[in-house]
């Protein structure tokens, strides 16, 4: 099996194509066996590796930090399964679920934002702008006020709410096929309706219910257990590969529906598939951690600028999301002595300027995005 970057034999003027063609920002590769070929973007690759390293470092630190601070070396040994039993117990049973939740929720939000922004051709499209997050919020608060709370039912409700809101957005946006623009506009409307429902319920509910609702609505990683994490891990294992494969199909959608159709893309099918994958990711993420503000909106845009690409790169966006959530959670836990702030407060504070910056940029470019 040859896996070197072999030029394909028998082609004219092979000289200028023998080496992988390194042109600004892209290198092509082609293997003879297996017949795999593609385009690599060195800068994107480097950015992804750095982000992955940063996410891993934050993950380890997140595991080390807590009521008892553990030395990083001990944590690494415990993670590898070679630590002393007491440390392993703390790491595996107490710390790991939270760190894993932060990592996976960040990835889920980042990837889903990247898919939605590409599909709608709109940098402002994200589950928190399109009603999906708010749908989850309204459903969970309904559950809390009606007294159905408890870990798993909260998750199930969040999931149902997100899916219902997404379905509603898609149906209302449908007019002989749903365009990206209509999806975003209808989504904004649905978001407000869901927020109103949430506010109404909180105003009508008991004070303790309102407090519990708020604790979830702000986005929170405190006290996560394996029981809450397992559904997320399973979903991510299934949905992430699907989402990354769909990413390739959205490349033609960026050129507009007519061009995409002309290039052989089944536009509506791809759009529904992308929406389902993105909603699935964000729904399970939200069900686990609540609506961690702005991550899905900002991560893809930050990743796109870091990598210098013309589109939000899904993998880069996922890793950026993980860095944002884990980093924000560390800040949230350490900012005030004796108080663990919910992670959503920090991402909100960091994310709002990103949103403003995007809006200003979009206006300067002479388009609303």
């Amino acid at each position, binding site marked *: 099996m040859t896996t070197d970057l072999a030029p394909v034999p028998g082609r004219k003027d092979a000289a200028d194509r023998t080496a992988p063609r390194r042109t600004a920002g892209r290198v092509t590769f082609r293997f003879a066996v297996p017949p795999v*070929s593609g*385009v690599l973007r060195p800068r994107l690759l480097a950015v992804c590796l750095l982000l992955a390293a940063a996410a891993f470092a934050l993950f380890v630190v997140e595991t080390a930090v807590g009521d008892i601070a553990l030395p990083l070396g001990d944590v690494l040994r415990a993670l590898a399964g070679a630590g002393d039993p007491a440390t392993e117990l703390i790491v595996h049973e107490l710390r790991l679920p939270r760190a894993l939740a932060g990592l996976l929720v960040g990835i889920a939000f980042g990837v889903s934002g990247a898919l939605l922004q590409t599909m709608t051709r709109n940098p402002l499209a994200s589950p928190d702008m399109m009603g999906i997050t708010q749908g989850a919020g309204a459903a969970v608060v309904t559950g809390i006020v009606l007294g159905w709370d408890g870990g798993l039912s909260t998750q199930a409700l969040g999931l149902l709410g997100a899916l219902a809101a997404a379905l509603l957005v898609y149906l209302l946006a449908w007019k002989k096929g749903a365009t990206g623009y209509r999806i975003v506009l209808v989504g904004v409307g649905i978001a407000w309706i869901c927020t109103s429902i949430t506010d109404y319920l909180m105003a009508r509910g008991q004070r303790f219910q309102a407090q519990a609702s708020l604790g979830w609505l702000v986005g929170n990683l405190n006290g996560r257990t394996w029981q809450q994490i397992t559904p997320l891990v399973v979903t991510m294992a299934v949905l992430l590969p699907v989402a990354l*494969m769909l990413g*390739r199909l959205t*490349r033609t959608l960026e*050129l507009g529906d*007519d061009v995409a*159709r002309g290039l*052989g*893309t089944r536009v509506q099918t791809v759009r529904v598939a992308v929406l389902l994958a993105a909603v699935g990711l964000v729904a399970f993420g939200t069900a686990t951690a609540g609506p961690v503000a702005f991550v899905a909106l900002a991560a893809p845009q930050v990743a796109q600028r870091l990598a210098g690409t013309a589109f939000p790169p899904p993998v880069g966006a996922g890793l950026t999301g993980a860095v944002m959530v884990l980093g924000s959670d560390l800040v949230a836990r350490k900012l005030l002595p004796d108080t663990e702030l919910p992670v959503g407060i920090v991402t909100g504070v960091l994310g709002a300027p990103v949103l403003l910056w995007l809006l200003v940029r979009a206006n300067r470019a002479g388009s609303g995005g």
Partner: protein
Amino acid sequence: MSKTDPVPGGGPGLRAESLRLAYDDRIVVEDLDLAVPTGRITVIVGANACGKSTLLRALARLLTPKSGAVHLDGRSIHAMPTRALAQRLGILPQSPVAPEGLTVVDLVGRGRSPHQTWWRQWSSADEEAVHDALRATAMTDLAHRAVDELSGGQRQRAWIAMAVAQGTPVMLLDEPTTYLDLAHQIDVLDLVTDLNRHQGRTVVMVLHDLNQACRYADHIVAMKAGRVVAEGAPGKVVTAALVEEVFGLRCVVGEDPVSGTPMVVPMSRHHEGAGAAAMAVPDTIG
């Protein structure tokens, strides 16, 4: 000019039969038959809202006919798999927009989508097609520039390069000269003619300018209110009577001094019988 993909010369080509096209309930094209000559340039002309762009969209399957069908090489395009159609017929819609920062080579590379799979995303055929498309459109030097930073003419050439890289025997172009200044209009039309003459591609395009249509078309199709009024070689079809019928414009048809094709010179309220008036002018002023 090196070849991109093999372009079959013969075959029944692209034809529309009893086509009826409508947006919602508004019928735009009614009972239209059209046989596109294979290996030739066909230009569709007509007044605004006569259904010419609608027809082009239907030929490319961007619009589903209410009745009738479009056939490509004897098969209904509505029954063909999307990718299979995209390997044989390409369309460049009117004024497409590229995402900010997308480079020319990435745009042109996307023209290869119908030939790519999950694992084979940049085959040697892709590389060669993109290389050739950039060269054919004189975009090689601009390959790594962002499309949105280019001038209007360059941008249009980049999009045409994408359609060229798609490697389809049939190319449909919807008003490829819109928003271009005159020099760039001619540049783009010459480029399209090159693609037809050197690579044997069948071209169907919608043009606004009648004189350009006469000059670049092998076959001209004049439409009015959703029907074909006349079709054929421009020299045989384009007459003052036809222009008056199709555009409601009185004119003189002369000969294009450069190409020898029909040249339409419109009359207007202030210049009717301009030739006679011009001669009369010195007397009036004097």
